[in-house]
């Protein structure tokens, strides 16, 4: 049962009287409505200002300055690639390359180090 049906059921024998009453709803005058509109506008708060975000000056942090000193992102990319290659060689040495630092080839070590620790001690270094 809708609200209107419920109300009609409540009204019973008075329904025609209430219908007549609803049909004769008192209406305000146009003048009064115009005054009410003027009052509403007069009382209305001023429109809210739209907040425009103020552009902040670009801030340069230390990391950014260091990056610029190194040559920017292209230089950093080269460094990163070299670093990754080094790590890769350390973790999985390519099979095609000779094992230069093999312990069994002591001569090669001597060849790589022309002056020994003893020589440096004698020279007072």
């Amino acid at each position: 049962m809708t609200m209107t049906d419920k109300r009609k059921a409540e009204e019973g024998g008075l329904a025609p009287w209430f219908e007549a009453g609803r049909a004769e709803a008192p209406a305000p005058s146009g003048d009064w409505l115009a005054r009410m509109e003027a009052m509403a506008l007069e009382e209305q708060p001023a429109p809210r200002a739209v907040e425009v975000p103020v552009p902040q000056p670009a801030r340069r942090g230390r990391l950014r300055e260091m990056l610029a000193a190194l040559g920017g992102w292209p230089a950093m990319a080269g460094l990163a690639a070299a670093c990754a290659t080094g790590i890769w060689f350390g973790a999985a040495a390519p099979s095609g390359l000779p094992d230069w630092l093999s312990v069994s080839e002591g001569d090669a070590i001597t060849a790589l180090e022309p002056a020994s620790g003893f020589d440096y001690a004698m020279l007072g270094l």
Partner: protein
Amino acid sequence: MPYDAMSDRSDESLLAAYAAGEPAAARALTLRLGPRAFGLAMRMLKDRAEAEDVAQEALLRLWRAAPGWREGEAKVSTWLYRVVSNLCIDRMRRRRGGTVDLDAIAEPADPAPSAESELQESARGAALQAALDTLPERQKQAVVLRHLEGLSNPEIAAIMDIGVRAVESLTARGRKALEGLLRSRRAELGYDDD
């Protein structure tokens, strides 16, 4: 131009737009709520000048409450009806120069000779209004809100600050009193032919 150019927007949404400074919302709300506030005041007070004053005061309070209005807290129309009702009852009490006896609310309407003499209107609506004017003010308020303004009982309960059962009781007593008052007018106003 349509009567309410913003009919797709709720009262609450329009009030928020009003508070934000949107002039169209001020106009739409005035057109939507002004006649309702005036209509209720007119039915309660039966005096055009007083009804205009009361409706104006209620609207003014609404505009001033708008910036602090929290959406979802209260229905705008219910709030407005409540303010209008309270202002009307204040005026009705002042007219009588005294306060309302709460016992009077429970009393059925007294079809006194003075009330009967008021029922000399020829129009059906006018006869109903004259009968309504003889009811205790709370009964009249409940009957007007329920049967002339078409509000639900929970809405009336919120407006009158009472429970739904109390609203049902007030409207039932009001209708019973009206039936007694209008019975003698049925034949005169053609209702026996219905």
